[in-house]
């Protein structure tokens, strides 16, 4: 099977699954406790997800996966099924359906869907109970759970130690490149890739994937658990994890890892973390002098001097030394624009201690400074307000100021009690003094504002925030303990943020290191890693098993009681399933392209025509050649061939037949959505869904029926309170039933709504200029109701998005008539409306009556022929100029076919001076058509007139007769 036909099959089946899913969902809403339905629903979602995994549609698979997890939780009773779950799943399925359409149209999916897919899957996962997180999945089929309830910053802090250790594995040159890259405003992203244990069974090669990561410098390849003894080592369980730093953008990385988003964690790193001196720690005694001198130069702001001193020391030191490495970093930091003072100071001091600066500690303590660092190093340069420079203060002043700020910080940190107000005022006064001393008058207003807010709210946080900000501007490090709340207040990213939100977070003013979590660090959402076993099992199944499921979706139909044991069986079944197993289960139904059936249809049409030539041949044998026996034999043979051909035709028609449920099945959803929207309560009753009709007819039914149902819901059924007032049950009833009546399918749409008010219709029609005043007086109620089929008719006062635009019932009628159907509308005011559609079973073969007129033959579809009569000339009566006759106590208008066709010959009567009269049905009325002679009736394949001829008025089409002649079939509706 080629990929293409596999894809086609997937699309077809996908739609069926979606339909089945929405049916099950709706049924579940009625019966939330039905285990069987639940299992079925789960199985549908599960299979669809599995199938989608065969193709390159990660967006689709992700949403389905989330849906599957949710259903699994529901199935196991961890979540109670409710309307919001149904809504969420329906939304997700709509999205998948949209994706299927896109795949169908374009053959692939645009990555623009990814964001929505992610949002939807998060929405679905948000409905999962928190407990699911704690559900420990069996052994290590899944990757180890990622800590969930961590804020972004916490997460950063948590990983930094291990990251820092691993970063040392990246060469200094690479790190320098990365650092300079980050300084240009590019993000540095730490990539932590932890493939799932079973990934080899899915054909993945994580090592290869990691190696090809864009802009990647590997830092670590580790095993998650210590290696077991070699005898116990399972080579096919992936134990590895990869870590490294990438200079690629987040979007690029997300795209690269789009198949394994839940196994990859992307964390934006502050560039400062790259600054890690490394090398030989022994050697060179002159550090002390250098540190003192360098710090002095730094305090004086002599960047050039500092650079010179550093360079000269570097020249004297062996490049392999730790010292040299630190000096090289110092030079990098001193490059234009130079880094923050305290960053430089920390690095210089580290030379003394020979330990790398603890940037993590640094980041934590300088919560606000981190922002500055990030700014300085380019992470968010544009976002820094230009009027916020760091003040250069003399060391003594800085020290004094630091003491003051710390004291105020401690005061602010005291618990809120009676003395709170006074303390706030005191602190405010002190701090105002500080602003004056350092000359930061611009801060005064902010301080006063913070102070009054703090006093109003009885919460010192605004003040603490201000202190933190102020300290930062003065280049003073405040201990984290002094400004605990301030950190939270000031840095929006320090709060737990849902991934979806966080992805969109643009920190407007705070130049805090923006660490946006990836999909792998969801907060309120359980991590995909710790989702239940089944989905993972599924993914682990080899592709062969998936194909098996494509072919026979109902192979694994677990009984509810078995569901617990199902997982294991599942695994076993999947592992064991071999290609040959699938053969036995596959061949029950056959999917065939419609084109092939159409071809069969055409061929049998030709066969019928060819077969019909035999009677002519028999006649010639007898009359022309006088061989009577041969003629009889030909006739015998003909009857045999005729029987077979008819059966064959019937069989082919059967193939084309499909149940009307194809159309009906979309109504539960439509009615549910619409009635919710309109605030109405509706009970939908579907009957006779198994009734079959030709595919074209059933398909042609879809749009008109939807329109009719909408009309019923919008105009027909009343609001619950109105219904109650009218003594009807609150729940309106909408019944759609189908049944077969001889060679027709009848579909009835009945509602018990307000019915159609004939007088309103009349008035509207008159107002819209659709009928004349004269007609307004004469028209009966039933006729008035039929006015709704007039083009441009609308009773609605306002146009809603459901109906009321006046393009409605006439479109419905045209669509029905196009496939040879009729429709009939009855309504009783206050009691309801019934619309009855009558459609032919099949359009393919038409039974026509052949008549002769002006020495030509014409066909009339048999279903419009009421009767054929021999009419004596004297029974024709003339009203004014118009010929009529009375037939069975009915006046029937008479038309001459020759006249209608503009043939210049009078109709020919037979020997007894009788004319051939064909009585035709025209809607509710009967019309008589005078012709020259009747011929036989025959089955023909009616072909629409091709090309230029298609514009010809009065003809329904043409057909080939058995003797090879062409029969023109007349369209009685266009004729008169």
């Amino acid at each position: 099977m080629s990929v293409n036909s596999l894809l086609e099959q997937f699309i077809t089946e996908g739609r069926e699954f979606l339909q089945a899913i929405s049916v099950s969902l709706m049924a579940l809403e009625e019966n939330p406790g039905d285990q069987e339905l639940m299992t079925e629903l789960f199985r549908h979602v599960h299979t669809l997800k599995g199938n989608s995994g065969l193709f390159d549609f990660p967006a689709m698979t992700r949403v389905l996966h989330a849906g599957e997890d949710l259903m699994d939780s529901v199935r196991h009773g961890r979540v109670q099924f409710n309307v919001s779950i149904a809504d969420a799943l329906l939304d997700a399925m709509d999205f998948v359906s949209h994706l299927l359409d896109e795949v169908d149209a374009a053959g692939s999916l645009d990555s623009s869907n990814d964001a929505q897919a992610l949002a939807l899957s998060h929405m679905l996962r948000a409905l999962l109970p928190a407990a699911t997180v704690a559900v420990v999945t069996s052994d290590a089929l899944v990757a180890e759970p990622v800590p969930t309830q961590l804020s972004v910053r916490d997460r950063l802090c948590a990983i930094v130690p291990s990251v820092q250790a691993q970063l040392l594995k990246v060469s200094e040159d690479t790190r320098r490149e990365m650092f300079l890259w980050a300084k240009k405003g590019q993000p540095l992203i730490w990539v932590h890739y932890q493939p799932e244990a079973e990934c080899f069974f899915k054909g993945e090669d994580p090592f290869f994937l990691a190696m090809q990561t864009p802009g990647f410098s590997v830092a670590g390849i580790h095993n998650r658990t210590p290696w077991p003894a070699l005898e116990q080592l399972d080579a096919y369980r992936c134990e590895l994890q990869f870590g490294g730093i990438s200079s690629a953008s987040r979007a690029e990385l997300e795209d690269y890892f789009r198949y394994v988003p839940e196994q990859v964690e992307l964390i934006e790193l502050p560039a400062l973390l790259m600054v890690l001196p490394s090398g030989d720690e022994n050697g060179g005694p002159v550090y002390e002098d250098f540190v003192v001198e360098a710090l002095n130069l730094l305090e004086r702001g002599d960047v050039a001097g500092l650079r010179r001193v550093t360079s000269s020391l570097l020249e004297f030191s062996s490049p392999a030394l730790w010292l040299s490495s630190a000096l090289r970093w110092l030079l990098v930091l001193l490059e234009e624009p130079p880094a923050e003072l305290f960053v430089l100071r920390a690095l210089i001091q580290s030379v003394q201690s020979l330990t790398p600066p603890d940037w993590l500690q640094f980041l934590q303590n300088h919560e606000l400074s981190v922002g500055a660092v990030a700014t300085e190093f380019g992470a968010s340069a544009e976002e820094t307000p230009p009027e916020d420079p760091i003040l250069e203060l003399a060391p003594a002043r800085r020290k004094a100021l630091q003491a003051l700020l710390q004291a105020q910080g401690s005061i602010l940190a005291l618990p809120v009690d009676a003395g709170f107000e006074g303390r706030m005022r005191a602190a405010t006064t002190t701090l105002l003094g500080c602003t004056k001393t350092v000359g930061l008058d611009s801060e005064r207003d902010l301080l006063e504002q913070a102070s009054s807010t703090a006093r109003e709210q009885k919460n010192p946080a605004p003040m603490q925030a201000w202190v933190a900000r102020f300290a930062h501007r003065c280049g003073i490090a405040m201990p984290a303990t002094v400004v605990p709340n301030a950190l939270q207040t000031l840095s929006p990213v320090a709060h737990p943020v849902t991934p979806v939100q966080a992805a969109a977070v643009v920190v407007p003013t705070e130049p805090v290191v923006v660490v946006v979590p990836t999909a792998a660090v969801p907060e309120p959402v359980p991590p995909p890693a710790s989702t239940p076993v089944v989905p993972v099992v599924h993914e682990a199944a080899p592709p062969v098993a998936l194909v098996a499921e494509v072919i026979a979706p109902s192979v694994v139909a677990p009984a509810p009681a078995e569901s617990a044991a199902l997982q294991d069986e599942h695994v076993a079944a999947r592992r064991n399933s071999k290609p040959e197993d699938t053969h036995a289960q596959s061949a029950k139904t056959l999917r065939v392209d419609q084109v092939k059936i159409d071809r069969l249809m055409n061929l049998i049409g030709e066969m019928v025509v060819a077969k019909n030539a035999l009677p002519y041949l028999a006649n010639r044998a007898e009359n022309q050649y006088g061989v009577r026996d041969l003629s009889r034999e030909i006739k015998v043979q003909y009857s045999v061939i005729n029987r077979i051909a008819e059966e064959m035709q019937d069989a082919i028609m059967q193939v084309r037949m499909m149940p009307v449920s194809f159309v009906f099945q979309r109504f539960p959803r439509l009615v549910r959505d619409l009635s919710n929207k309109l605030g109405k309560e509706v009970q939908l009753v579907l009957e006779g869904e198994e009734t079959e009709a030709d595919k074209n007819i059933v398909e042609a039914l879809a749009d008109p029926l939807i329109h009719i149902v909408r009309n019923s819901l919008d105009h027909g059924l009343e609001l619950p309170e109105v219904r109650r007032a009218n003594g009807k049950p609150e729940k309106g009833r909408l019944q759609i039933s189908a049944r077969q009546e001889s060679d027709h399918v009848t579909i009835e749409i009945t509602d018990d709504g307000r019915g159609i008010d004939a007088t309103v219709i009349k008035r509207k029609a008159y107002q819209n200029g659709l009928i004349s005043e004269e007609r307004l007086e004469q028209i009966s109620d039933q006729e008035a109701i039929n006015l709704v089929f007039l083009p441009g008719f609308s009773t609605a006062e306002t146009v809603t998005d459901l109906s009321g635009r006046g393009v409605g019932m006439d479109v419905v009628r045209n669509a029905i008539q196009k496939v040879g159907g009729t429709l009939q509308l009855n309504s009783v005011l206050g009691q309801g409306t019934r619309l009855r559609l009558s459609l032919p079973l099949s359009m393919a073969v038409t039974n026509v009556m052949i008549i002769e007129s002006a020495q030509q033959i014409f066909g009339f579809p048999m279903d419009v022929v009421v009767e054929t009569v021999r009419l004596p000339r004297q029974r024709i009566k003339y009203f004014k100029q118009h010929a009529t006759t009375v037939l069975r106590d009915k006046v029937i208008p008479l038309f001459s076919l020759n006249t209608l066709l503009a043939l210049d010959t009078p109709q020919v009567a037979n020997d007894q001076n009788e004319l051939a009269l064909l009585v035709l049905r025209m809607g509710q009325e009967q019309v008589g058509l005078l012709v020259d002679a009747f011929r036989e009736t025959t089955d023909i394949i009616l072909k629409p007139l091709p090309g230029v001829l298609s514009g010809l008025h009065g003809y329904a089409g043409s057909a080939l007769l058995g003797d090879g002649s062409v029969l023109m079939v007349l369209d009685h509706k266009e004729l008169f």
Partner: protein
Amino acid sequence: MTMRYQNKTVILADVVGVEDAEELLGMLQKYPTAKLDMEACTHVHTACLQVLMAVKPAVKKWPEVPVLAHWLRLALKQ
């Protein structure tokens, strides 16, 4: 031939695929003192990589492909 034992050396060549992992593990268990020659090796599947990481054989020759050599050195800490 992607994998063979010769002269007390396990020689890996070309692409060592996922299907070779168990054989590689077996070979390294059978010849615990064998050295590893990966000079002609162009890629090692993750499954084989972790076998190498677990067994940690002494490496005689690293792959000629620099990127692969770099990654393998990092993984095997040699």
